[in-house]
């Protein structure tokens, strides 16, 4: 888009720039002050000094330079010097980045560059909203993702605490190690719980997917009586507080377990697994029912009638016609069921015994009894597995859509 303002470098008024910079830094100092200051006067001091310094710095840069580039270089050097005097090479790196960004921002405001690329007819308020909206979106993403990202570097901590050590902050290789990952691979307890999770979650998922899909198909037939009531019962595990279901399941499955062990003579461990798998399957079924029901809304019933018309029995019709069409819903329901079982800690704490200890259980007790970064290493591995899983499913989905010619690629 051709824009006449592109070449304009007429500065805005100095007070405007300074007050904007001051406000921005005051906002940052506000957050910093809330988290670190011990009393109100210290808090005021943080905010006041922060914005005061920033205004002074901006004023100095603007009076010394006309364009952004030399100011960025000076500011980067200054940041590097401060970073070096406070910390080490890591501090200097942060200083340089901070200096460059700060100087760029100051001149971006001062030289009206924020108007670039925007239609010229926008009022000041519209420009403000344009950036305000992006800032809000960025803030939402930051608050969603930072808690997850923060554990990734901590899992490479060389010490046994959840602490960013000075060595880590200065990017010293000494401060990092893989020992918590080794711990995970070498510890019997972690390996046992990892194995248990890998046994329990897939089986529970398969049960939930088969039963949930069948239930969803049944419940979407118009001739089934008490459809709503049955639906409500089936999705109740999702609505009832988990701790309540877990208590109920504990007593119910204890009796079931005693019967299987005592009367049927099954092995204690096997019974333990059956109990946990069934309990997790119950938790997973609502997710499958909901996603499959949603997919069935878009399913054309005349297709099944057409299949029947051509002599296919209901089972063939289901596997050849209906199943492929509702597969995306089944898969995403299965994914939810899998994650439910894989992440679940309350029910397994009640229903399982120590031989069925799953990964979340081990993480839970580990976090309570011993705050060890091994948990962060496991969390990192799980995050990577989850990302891989979701990416695979998404790629498969796109592929099948492409094959069926549904998406215009």
């Amino acid at each position, binding site marked *: 888009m051709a824009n006449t303002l592109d070449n304009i470098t007429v500065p805005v008024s100095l007070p405007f720039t300074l007050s904007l910079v001051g406000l921005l830094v005051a906002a940052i100092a506000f957050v910093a002050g809330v988290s670190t200051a011990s009393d109100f006067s210290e808090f005021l001091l943080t905010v006041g000094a922060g914005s005061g310094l920033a205004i002074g710095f901006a004023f100095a840069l603007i009076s010394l330079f006309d364009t952004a580039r030399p100011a960025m270089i000076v500011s980067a050097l200054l940041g590097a010097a401060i970073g070096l005097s406070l910390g080490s090479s890591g501090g200097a790196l942060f200083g340089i980045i901070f200096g460059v960004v700060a100087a760029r921002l100051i001149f971006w405001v001062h030289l009206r560059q924020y108007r670039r690329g925007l239609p010229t007819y926008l009022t000041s308020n519209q420009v403000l909203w344009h950036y305000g909206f992006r800032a809000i979106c960025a803030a939402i993403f930051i608050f969603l993702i930072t808690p997850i990202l923060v554990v990734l570097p901590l899992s490479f901590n060389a010490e*046994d605490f959840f602490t960013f050590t000075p060595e880590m902050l200065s990017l010293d290789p000494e401060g990092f190690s893989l020992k918590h990952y080794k711990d995970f691979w070498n510890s019997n307890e972690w390996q046992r719980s990892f194995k248990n999770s890998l046994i329990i979650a897939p089986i529970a998922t398969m049960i939930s997917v088969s039963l949930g899909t069948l239930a969803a198909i049944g419940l979407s037939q118009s001739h089934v009586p008490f459809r709503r009531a049955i639906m409500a019962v089936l999705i109740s595990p999702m609505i009832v507080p988990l701790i309540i279901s877990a208590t109920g399941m*504990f*007593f119910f499955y*204890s*009796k079931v377990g005693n019967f299987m062990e005592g009367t049927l003579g099954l092995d204690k*461990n096997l019974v333990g697994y059956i109990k946990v798998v069934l309990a997790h399957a119950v938790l997973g079924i609502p997710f499958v029912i909901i996603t499959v029901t949603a997919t069935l809304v878009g399913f054309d019933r005349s297709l099944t009638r057409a299949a029947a018309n051509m002599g296919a029995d209901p089972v063939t019709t289901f596997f050849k016609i209906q199943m492929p069409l509702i597969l995306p819903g089944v898969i995403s329901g299965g994914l939810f069921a899998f994650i439910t079982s894989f992440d679940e800690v309350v029910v397994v704490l009640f229903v399982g015994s120590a031989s069925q*200890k799953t990964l979340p259980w081990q993480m839970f007790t*580990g976090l309570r*009894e011993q705050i060890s970064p091994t948990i962060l290493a496991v969390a990192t591995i799980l995050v990577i597995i989850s990302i891989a899983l979701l990416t695979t499913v998404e790629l498969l989905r796109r592929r099948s859509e492409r094959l069926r010619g549904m998406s215009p690629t």
Partner: protein
Amino acid sequence: MKFTKTLLATTALTVAASAVVAEEMTIVSWGGAYSKSQKLAYHDPYSEKTGVTIINDDSSAEAVAKLRAMNEAGNITWDVVDVVAADAMRLCDEGLAMEIDPDTMLAPAPDGTSAADDFGDLLVSDCFIPQIVYSTTFGYRTDLVGDNPPDDICDVFDLEAYPGKRSLEKRPINNMEWALLCDGVAKADVYDVLATAEGQDQALAKLDSIKDSVVWWNAGADTPQLLADGEVIMGSTYNGRLFSVIEEQKQPVAMLWDAQVFDLDGWIIPAGLSDERKQRALDYIMFATDTQRLADQAKYISYGPARASSAPLVGKHADLGIDMAPHMPTDPNNAKNTFLYNYEFWADYRDDIDAKFQAWLAQ
């Protein structure tokens, strides 16, 4: 579909395979460095000797509640449980733990002294087999307390000399006693004073003077983490956790042994096990609480063995090679001023004082 079938078959096989393993027993303990010391000193040698697979369940924190629920459901999955003495007394009173006869069920000392005499006064309940003496005491950051490190329990309450946060356990036990000690109550009178409503208010008033500077902890691992972060300058926890912070993790932390509170930790066997499981549990207890085994545990963690005959056998730390005796809470240098925890008092007053303490916390 073929893939699904293969997956199904594999998982089914794995379940079946893991189900055919030999004898197993589930031992419940506290987790962390403590469970590790038990694994190295008791579980591993026992598995090697008998072939029994031992499964750890780090659920001692909720042992009483869970044992009650298991008993109600008629499905006890635990074989041996590690609990503090006070919990053992409660479980014993409720009939949830089995009574132990020290003369027939526990090994005598190598010199022939009977187990009952060897454990002596530490056999505080009929169901309880003492394992270690531990203490709840304070550690402080050496780099954050200035030139004059704290050496008196009352320094915890002195915000002027030691400004900064301190961590205390989120329960009245120990905190109330320390508060009274530092409010001028003589050591011998603490529990008499604490039995009165005025005494309880006095203790809470003293705690109130530092309330704004207190970080409350629930798990033994909290204070070590807070100290390592420098988030608190001093904090109470179990002495073994502090040993690990100081000697194994090399953090700038030191011990403040003054007015440490001794307590006992040990085993119970749940009541109502099948004969086969009961025999196995008893066999394990006989093995794990003999003189040598108790002394072995002190190689891995700085808790004092509960048998008198084990004390002379306490040697060096298994990895660090340092003498463990000076790190024991019972060492004369550390035990200059100790405070004796009164089980009976807390058994009688716990519910009342807990309620008062929680109400005070919420103010």
